[in-house]
């Protein structure tokens, strides 16, 4: 049965939004320190959004981050891995990239970074 034209248009519109706002970082798996790869800037924007990359770590002091996998990004990734219970490698391994691509709470993780966090007594 042919759907009415209007509803098809609307569905297409929603999907497009999701692609624009939550990038699929899988292209960045195993990108090495020092390399210049398109899309790294989006990763820096994601990590900035949740408190891991400070603005001036983007290399040119403004919110337009560079596509260079630099030292501050490596450090930010290791902090992210520590906070989210992943193996701390500083690398864009598959588990880290998969988690970064997962939906999450909008509250930043800064309270996990600045205060340190309590360990749970088992």
């Amino acid at each position, binding site marked *: 049965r042919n759907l009415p034209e209007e509803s098809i248009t609307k569905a297409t519109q929603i999907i497009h939004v999701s692609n624009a706002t939550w990038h699929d970082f899988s292209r960045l798996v195993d990108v090495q320190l020092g390399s210049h790869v398109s899309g790294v800037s989006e990763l820096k924007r994601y990590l900035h959004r949740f408190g891991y990359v400070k603005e001036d770590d983007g290399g040119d002091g403004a919110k337009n981050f560079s596509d260079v996998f630099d030292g501050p990004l490596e450090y930010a990734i290791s902090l992210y891995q520590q906070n989210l219970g992943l193996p701390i490698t500083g690398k864009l391994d598959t588990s880290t990239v998969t988690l970064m691509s997962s939906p999450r*709470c*909008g509250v930043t993780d800064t309270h996990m970074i600045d205060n340190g966090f309590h360990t749970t007594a088992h």
Partner: protein
Amino acid sequence: YTYFDGKPKWNRDTLTYAFSKTHKLEYLTSDDVKTVFRRAFDQWASVIPVSFEEVDDYTVADLKIGFFAGDHGDGQPFDGVLGTLAHAFAPKNGRLHLDAAETWVVDGDFKESDVAVDLESVVTHEIGHLLGLGHSSQESAVMYPSLRPRTKKVDLTVDDVAGVLKLYGANPNLRFDSLTESEDSLKNG
């Protein structure tokens, strides 16, 4: 478990909550949403000496709940399907916002959509923020920041309970059998 800077908390044993009458979903009835929130609030109330009371007047409620889309004026715009699902503010702000663009599910039926998100899991997490808890590093914890689509995570774990007990003390009626059976539940701990 972690806390927000300064470990803010509520100093009252009853907190009121209300739902925005304008910022709501069309495809879920308000009863469905209220039932989910009641279950989530009851979970936290079973652990700490704080009770939660629904009121009708959104403007005077301690905890204000609404579904918002895109930029909704609090400096933390939502971003459409998946991505950021919701956010809540530390005590004593009391606001809890959910992204209206998500495909929210209240009955655990994820078959309809591969981007379905379980409302009760996200609500239980955001109430933790309202009480003053930050994010946890333990993936099994309700307060872990990430939630995969089509998954349900509503049972408080040892980590969640330990963090909130430290802030508010224990509910005198705390019954261990009300906690999760998972291997890291407080009861098993």
